[in-house]
């Protein structure tokens, strides 16, 4: 468990033992119970989203009807328009911008630092690794107040730079840990051969190690994107103005300021969730690999 192996392309199914009987066996009671539980879990996972979606398509009169009718009739896009009028698109853009830049910076500084830690021998490498990994043991909230004060003194409150800086620093330790583990597992021969051919070590990192590490890079990128996109507490203290707030902060402030308009809130919430949901569905395996590798850090 302690060795982080990134099993990215690991097949999920294990070959099922083929029953000897010629006829296909009926579902045994045990199996039926398993399917029943799986179905129950799946429904409980999906139901809140479905209900939020249905609510978001209802006209206001029907949102506030009790008992609620299940299906929206008439179907309306008004709630989504209202959300956009209140600034949803700008908030989504802010989130997207901050998250993407963070991902790029994390991958750059992360792979740059992970490579020497994986492959080179130098004095103080253990100490450097230790210092880089300590923050993973410190609960995030401990740093909240001091970070706020430092950012205020640097004049970085309510700026993209400030928020990106914090997210970058937060994601680096885990990124370095995952990338280092992956780099160590790459076959060393390719790098040796390139080095014999006179390639510099930076060149080896860029032209050989990075391309070979695409699965790990993708997993890290997804994890960092998800964390930055979904983060709320830091964003809420760092971005006070309407122009700078991220989508999560937008949701919270419209909920508390305007008074809750549930149809519109569900529309905004789902729109905010859509990008990560889409990414997740498209790149599910990478996500799971990143999640698994990320959590086995300790």
């Amino acid at each position, binding site marked *: *468990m302690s060795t982080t192996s990134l099993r990215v392309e690991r097949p*999920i199914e294990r070959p099922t033992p083929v029953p000897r009987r010629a006829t296909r066996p009926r579902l045994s009671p045990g199996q039926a119970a398993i399917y029943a539980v799986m179905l129950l879990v799946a429904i409980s996972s999906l139901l809140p989203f479905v209900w939020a979606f249905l609510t978001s398509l209802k006209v206001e009169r029907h949102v506030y009807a009790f008992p609620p009718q299940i299906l929206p009739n008439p179907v309306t896009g008004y709630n989504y328009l209202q959300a956009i009028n209140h600034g949803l698109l700008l908030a989504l853009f802010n989130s997207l911008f901050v998250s993407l830049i963070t991902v790029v910076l994390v991958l750059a500084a992360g792979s*740059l630092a992970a490579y020497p830690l994986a492959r*080179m021998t130098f004095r103080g490498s253990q100490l450097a690794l230790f*210092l880089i990994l300590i923050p993973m043991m410190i609960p995030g*909230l401990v740093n909240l107040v001091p970070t706020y004060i430092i950012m205020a003194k640097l004049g970085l409150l309510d700026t993209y730079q400030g928020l990106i800086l914090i997210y970058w620093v937060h994601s*680096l330790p885990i990124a370095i840990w995952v990338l280092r583990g992956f780099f160590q597992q790459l076959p060393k021969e390719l790098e040796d051969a390139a080095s014999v051919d006179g390639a510099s070590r930076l060149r080896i990192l860029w032209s050989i190690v990075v391309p070979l590490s695409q699965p790990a890079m993708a997993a890290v990128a997804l994890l960092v994107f998800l964390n930055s996109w979904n983060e709320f507490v830091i964003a809420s203290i760092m971005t006070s103005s309407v122009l700078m707030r991220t989508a999560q902060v937008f949701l919270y402030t419209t909920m508390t300021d305007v008074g809750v308009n549930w149809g519109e809130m569900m529309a905004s919430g789902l729109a905010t969730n859509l990008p990560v949901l889409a990414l*997740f*569905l498209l790149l*599910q395996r990478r996500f799971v690999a990143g999640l698994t590798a990320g959590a086995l850090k300790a």
Partner: protein
Amino acid sequence: MHQSTVAVRPVSTAQTRRRRIDLLPYVMIAPALLAIGLFSLLPTFYGMVISVYRVEFVQLLRFVGAANYVDVLADPKFWNSVRISFTFTALSMLLSVSLGFGLALLANQSVRFRSAFRTIALLPWVTSYVVTYLIFRWILNADLGLLNAFFVETLGWSRIQWLGNPILAMASLIVVNVWRDAPYAMVLLLAGLQGIPQELYEAASIDGATRWRSFLSVTLPLMKSALLVLIVLTTIQDFNVVVAMLVLTGGGPGTATETMSLRMYYEAFTNARMGTAAAIA
């Protein structure tokens, strides 16, 4: 690692040795290390400093020694929040880890639709805290929510104030938190379960072990470290949860769901008492 460098390096004068020091690894590590040092390690120490000062807006006004700590410890609200934090964290963690383990064992059976199941089960985990609690605040809404609609219309009960009653509010928070965290636990533990070589189970069954027996003597011991890691992670995470209470209950009713982390957030950013907040942290 160190020893091999030392062994390879030829004995040399101080001058040539200095020239031989390879700067490249240090340069490569520098950006990450500097960033983490300045904006992660330094704030932790700075936080300890702040906690012994009276802080007005973002200026450290004067040194007050342990006064912030005394204030905090003397405040009954603080002890209330400690109790609530522990209740919330312990119950959330226990429920999501055990539920996650159960689901992982299920999903590890050779059944069909496993990967579709895993995808659907992970949707809550991908969803942000704010969105999650927003949706549940709507579902749990006492007047209009789906849950009460079910209870009132289908079962004929009277409306239940899910978020208005101290115990129910806490229970709601925990259940929603478990709804979000259990799939995460499941995926982690499933990865662990799939790492257990099948031969061990075959060997156990040849030795006449029942399934329960092989669960106890093969699965559990091999999963111990994964479970431990997960328990530590989940505990830290649950202890830090702020958004749940901010969005769902606002710490209420009264202070029934005001955890330490929420109290710190309020102290710092609503009451603007940074020193106190740092002491709580």
